[in-house]
């Protein structure tokens, strides 16, 4: 289904849609408070943007440097060209260690690869241990946001899910009570796990280590008990130097949830004594994106979710309407790049207001890219007929002065006399939830000419009156 069709379903539940809008705006405001508390915020954004662009310009060299340094520390580094290879590598490592139970911390990359169903098919039980991700896993839903996976759910929904799956009291919906219940269940899962899998927030080329950030401590609990840790990372997660982490850790949590830093920012350099540490480097279309001068800066994304929280369309249409692992503005670039046919409506889920660009901590020119994505899809002949026809019609209308002014005159007259059903009908989707203002009597051109004339007269009057009779 297209974004507008799915968004329609979301907005049909008006109170919930309004609640969703407010909940995300609240996060945006927390982000603003944190950003304004750091005087050098704009310097940090600029540094982050430059560090990422530099890294991308030498990405293969930095990947080799990372591999060399990580290997020297006893890490086993794997390379996966696509999702299928990633899943196969992870499964093989788990099978070699006879892993039956895996605990996973939040990793959008494994969502992108659909790792969970793959592992389950191979008889491995997977538990997503980020609270939000666990909730949507129990409900058999995808996350609707990359940082707040269950933001589309009300506490009553979570209460029902927990009642069904872990036996909390029927009707109980207090977040504290529900979190405590999840804590007790998940802590048992941590202790029973044979292996832990995490994502990677940042990897460091010069040291061969990586950093994972969580608030719950779930990544650390997941990998500090069992003897096997697998970390899956996109090849774009690399930073050249350890000192670059200062810039990114200052930006990440402030932008994501309005916290000064995540509770746990864990630095892994090699396996724990008596354990194994594997890192899987995944391409899966990233090298294709790097090729494109228009879109390569989207690879700088650090997955903070700030562009979603601020986006007026995301807030009012919900993450699931994007049908994309990464929804919102950044997802509307990344996902159509990978599969333009299936996701051609996404760059139009945007008013080009530019708010996403303003908040992006790594200064991705999001709204410019969203605009460019529309022509990218046009070049691929993927714009629907209504969109193409209306654009053709508008360009014909606007390229001739006489046609334009004639059409304007006709419309002003018609709008005054036409019955409502002739203006507000299925042929006018714009008018579905909106009314046009009353049509003015004269065109802007005529009004402006009249105004100019009026001004000129006013100017000439006092000078002619100055020498008049007193």
């Amino acid at each position, binding site marked *: 289904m297209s974004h507008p069709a799915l968004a329609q379903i979301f907005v049909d539940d008006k109170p919930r849609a309004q609640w969703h809008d407010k909940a995300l705006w609240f996060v945006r405001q927390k982000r603003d408070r944190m950003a304004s508390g750091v005087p050098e915020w704009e310097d940090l954004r600029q540094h982050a943007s430059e560090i990422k662009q530099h890294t991308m310009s*030498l990405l293969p060299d930095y*990947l080799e440097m990372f591999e060399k340094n990580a290997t020297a520390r006893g890490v086993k580094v794997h390379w996966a060209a696509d999702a299928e290879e990633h899943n196969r590598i992870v499964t093989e490592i788990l099978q070699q260690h006879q892993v039956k139970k895996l605990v996973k911390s939040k990793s959008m990359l494994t969502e992108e690869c659909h790792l969970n169903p793959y592992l389950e098919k191979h008889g491995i039980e997977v538990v997503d241990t980020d609270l939000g991700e666990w909730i949507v896993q129990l409900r058999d839903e995808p996350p609707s946001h990359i940082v707040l996976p269950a933001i589309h759910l009300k506490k009553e929904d979570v209460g029902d899910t927990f009642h069904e799956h872990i036996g909390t009291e029927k009707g109980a919906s207090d977040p504290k009570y529900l979190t405590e219940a999840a804590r007790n269940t998940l802590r048992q899962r941590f202790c029973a796990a044979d292996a832990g899998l995490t994502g990677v927030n940042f990897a*460091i080329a010069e040291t061969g280590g990586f950093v994972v950030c969580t608030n*719950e401590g779930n990544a650390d609990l997941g990998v500090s008990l069992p003897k096997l840790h697998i970390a899956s990372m996109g*090849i774009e997660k690399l930073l050249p130097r350890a000192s670059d982490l200062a810039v990114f850790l200052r930006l990440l949590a402030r932008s994501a949830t309005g916290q*000064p830093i995540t509770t746990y920012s864990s630095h892994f*350099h090699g396996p724990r004594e008596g354990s194994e540490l594997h890192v899987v480097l995944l391409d899966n279309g990233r090298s294709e994106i790097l090729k494109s001068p228009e879109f390569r800066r989207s690879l700088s994304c650090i997955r903070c979710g700030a562009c979603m929280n601020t986006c007026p369309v995301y807030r009012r249409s919900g993450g699931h309407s994007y049908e994309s692992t990464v929804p919102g503005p950044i997802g509307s670039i990344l996902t159509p790049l990978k599969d333009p046919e299936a996701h051609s409506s996404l760059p139009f889920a945007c008013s080009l207001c530019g708010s996403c660009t303003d908040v992006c901590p790594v200064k991705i020119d999001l709204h410019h890219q969203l605009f460019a994505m529309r022509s990218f899809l046009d070049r691929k002949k993927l714009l629907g007929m209504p969109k193409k026809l209306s654009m053709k019609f508008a360009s014909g209308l606007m390229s001739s002065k006489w046609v334009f002014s004639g059409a304007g005159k006709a419309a002003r007259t018609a709008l005054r006399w036409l019955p409502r059903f002739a203006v507000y009908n299925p042929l006018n989707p714009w008018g579905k939830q909106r009314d046009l203002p009353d049509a003015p009597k004269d065109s802007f051109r005529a009004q402006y000419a009249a105004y100019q004339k009026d001004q000129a007269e006013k100017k000439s009057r006092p000078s002619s009156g100055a020498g008049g009779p007193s």
Partner: protein
Amino acid sequence: MTQSSRQQILTRLRAALPESAALPNLPARGPWQTFDNPYDRFCEVLESVGGICFRVPTLVAANERLNQIAEWNEAKVRVSVVDGVGVPTVDLASIDDPHDLENVDFAVLSGHFAVAENGAIWVTDDTVKHRVLYFLPQRLAMVIPASEIVNNMHEAYGRIQIGDNVFGAFISGPSKTADIEQSLVIGAHGARALTVFAVESL
């Protein structure tokens, strides 16, 4: 097979490289935020993320303060890696499997230094035998030197040799989540509480 994917990815990337872009220099002092009183700022931020800080002159005083905490006194299974602060019930040296630490109620651990701008404490795996102790106990106390509070993360990374330790972490407050309707709940999966003792003579 993996070898060929490695080659394939590197070749593809080399064919796709954008024009070179300079790596910005990150000055040690830079335009980075500093505070008149980093310690006060640290305490303020720590409290805003759910932790609490006590400034004490000595380890003896830290021990006295610890003994006034009800949860410490009620804790059945206690761990301490700081000599003189808290009497442990568990002999860490005798524990080989971290799973045996599942029931720790309260652990007293030590941090190297703290960061004023975000209330974080830098910890490493060389002060504990099992790193899971930073995450698994119900409650944590952290002993830090009161004089070692840096202003910001740039100063923090300037102090540490990343990679000297297999594991290191910045920990800012107790474990928390807001995944249910954006309601902040302290005590997600990890520690429910974090008490910091900033010791003057350490």
